[in-house]
């Protein structure tokens, strides 16, 4: 394991930012620390970097306990949320800074900086100051600055938060490609599920200072293990009484039943529905055009749920009575989550 956190605790006054946090990260992976704001993800990142000290527990990087190693000696590259570029230095000097303080030979610095400027595609802008760059360009400079001293570990705090939506999409792909190309172990913090799913190899979900679940984006999305991870992804709606929906196993002590839009099939009364035996009738409350899909809000069995319909399907009107079929439901018992499949799905496939 390249980075290891063992039983880390950290409090700020009464606020418990890290509550017995432990996880491991393999060399060369791109890890996303995902959680709502205040969940302690940035604190974890700052402790790994050495900008905060844990109250207890061990931080191990490359087999060495680094708790007492000062931030500047850990060999870590850090990209700050607002980039923290040195505003009184040019792009060139910003990128060169780390090597300059290490007193590296001038020619070597020049070679490395030019190489990085080429890599981030900002050739010709070396003499600009950060204030003369766009948000996306600043992020690239921050990235290059962090990489210049060849860190073994790259940490990124909300790297895309300050960039507008269109450029963000482009930068995500760019960053993922870059990191893969360089093979540097990286951890980034984000509160955006889509971002984590799209960019990370492994996602670590944090909530209230605790680690909820660790896994690949696919595992986390399709098999959430805790109540929190269930509700955090997708546009989740809650079912007030899931027992009323047909063909699901009944489980003792269910607290919440959660469905995501892709678990639901809404059909008009005159449309073909293969599993017509286990549909419930619902009333459409709202229809919203979302560009690539239509979002339909339906009241069914006393619950209000969000579903989606393709643009090629016949349109649905507000107030219309529709058939609602649910493929699967996440149910939570205490802190654990289980997936219930609609039994009708299996029976039908047997028939065919």
């Amino acid at each position, binding site marked *: 394991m390249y980075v290891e956190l063992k039983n880390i605790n950290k409090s700020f006054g009464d606020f418990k930012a890290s509550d017995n946090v432990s996880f491991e990260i393999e060399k060369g992976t791109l890890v996303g620390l995902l959680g709502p704001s205040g969940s302690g993800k940035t604190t974890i990142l700052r402790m790994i970097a050495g900008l905060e000290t844990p109250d207890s527990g061990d931080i191990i990087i490359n087999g060495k306990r680094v708790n007492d190693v000062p*931030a*500047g000696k850990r060999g870590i590259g850090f990209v700050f949320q607002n980039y923290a570029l040195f505003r009184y230095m040019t792009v060139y000097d910003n990128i060169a800074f780390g090597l300059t303080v290490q007193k590296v030979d001038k020619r070597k610095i020049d070679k490395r900086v030019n190489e990085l400027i080429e890599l981030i595609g900002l050739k010709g802008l070396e003499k600009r100051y950060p204030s003369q760059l766009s948000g996306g360009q600043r992020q690239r400079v921050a990235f290059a600055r962090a990489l210049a001293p060849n860190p073994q570990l790259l940490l990124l705090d909300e790297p895309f938060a300050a960039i507008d939506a269109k450029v963000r999409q482009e930068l995500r792909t760019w960053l993922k490609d870059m990191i893969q190309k360089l093979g540097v172990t990286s951890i980034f913090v984000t509160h955006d599920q889509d971002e984590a799913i799209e960019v990370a190899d492994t996602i670590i979900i944090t909530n209230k200072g605790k680690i909820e679940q660790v896994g690949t984006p696919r595992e986390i999305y399709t098999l959430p293990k805790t109540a929190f991870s269930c509700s955090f992804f997708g546009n989740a709606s809650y079912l007030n009484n899931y027992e009323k929906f047909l063909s699901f196993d009944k489980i003792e002590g269910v607290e919440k039943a959660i469905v995501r839009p892709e678990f639901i099939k809404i059909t008009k009364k005159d449309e073909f529905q293969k599993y017509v035996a286990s549909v419930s009738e619902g009333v459409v409350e709202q229809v919203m055009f979302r560009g690539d899909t239509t979002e339909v809000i339906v009241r069914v069995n006393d619950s209000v749920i969000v579903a989606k319909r393709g643009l090629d399907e016949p349109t649905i009107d507000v107030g219309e009575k529709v058939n609602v079929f649910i493929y699967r439901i996440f149910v939570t018992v205490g802190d654990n989550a289980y997936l219930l499949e609609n039994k009708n799905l299996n029976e039908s496939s047997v028939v065919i």
Partner: protein
Amino acid sequence: MDNDKKGNPIVKWLLIALSFIFVVLFLVLPLVTVITQSLRSGFETYKKAVTDSYTVKATVLTIEATVSAVAFNTIFGIFAAWLITKFKFKGKKFLTALIDVPVTISPVIAGLIFLLTFGRQSVIYPYLQSMGLKIVFAVPGVVLATIFVTFPFISRELIPVLETQGTDEEEAAALMGAKGFTIFRRITFPHIKWAFLYGIVLCTARAMGEFGAVSVLSGHLRGKTNTLPLHVEILFNEFQYVPAFAVSSILVMMAVIVLAIRSILEYRGKKAE
């Protein structure tokens, strides 16, 4: 509609006129008076007043006190501003308020406080005497009083600038292995330098002109503990008006030189950026 954006021209001219009247009435007119009055009896009298040995000594002492105050308060100001903006600790608000004390209390009172603290009545007076330190009615007292009244000038200029800057850039530099002094020199200082320069100018101007606290502590010993403002007062009280104005003009010139240096530095610095 255009007026909404650019402001009403009447208001603009009214404000310009008002500012102009104030500047002429309170700044230009007195300055002109100082110069004309000092030259009233011809250049020879002026030269005599300015080169008088007491005047020269007062000028030297004023420069000494000013340089000490600026040097001390520069160091203190940077440390205090750094401490207050970059660290969290108990009693920070109290310390911030304490730094402002010298500008909020009357300089005469400040002088009296020092007189009582270091004078004959004080408990520490015997120790000071055994160490051979004479503060009250001596040059150290003058320097001390000057330092005291100009205490917050530099830190007060630096604190707001350092506060808006935050600690991110310093953290970034520290993460890359930069040491404290390198961080200050390459990251923090470029950011604060104009505020810093302005603080020095304010501190210098205030130190040169300090009267109240110095007046109490100096004992008005001509040629020993007299600074320029005290010397002006003595001359004035002795009905020597022309010499009084002549000595005042030295202070005016010193102020003009300080302002000129500042403007030149700023102009060059801004152009280089």
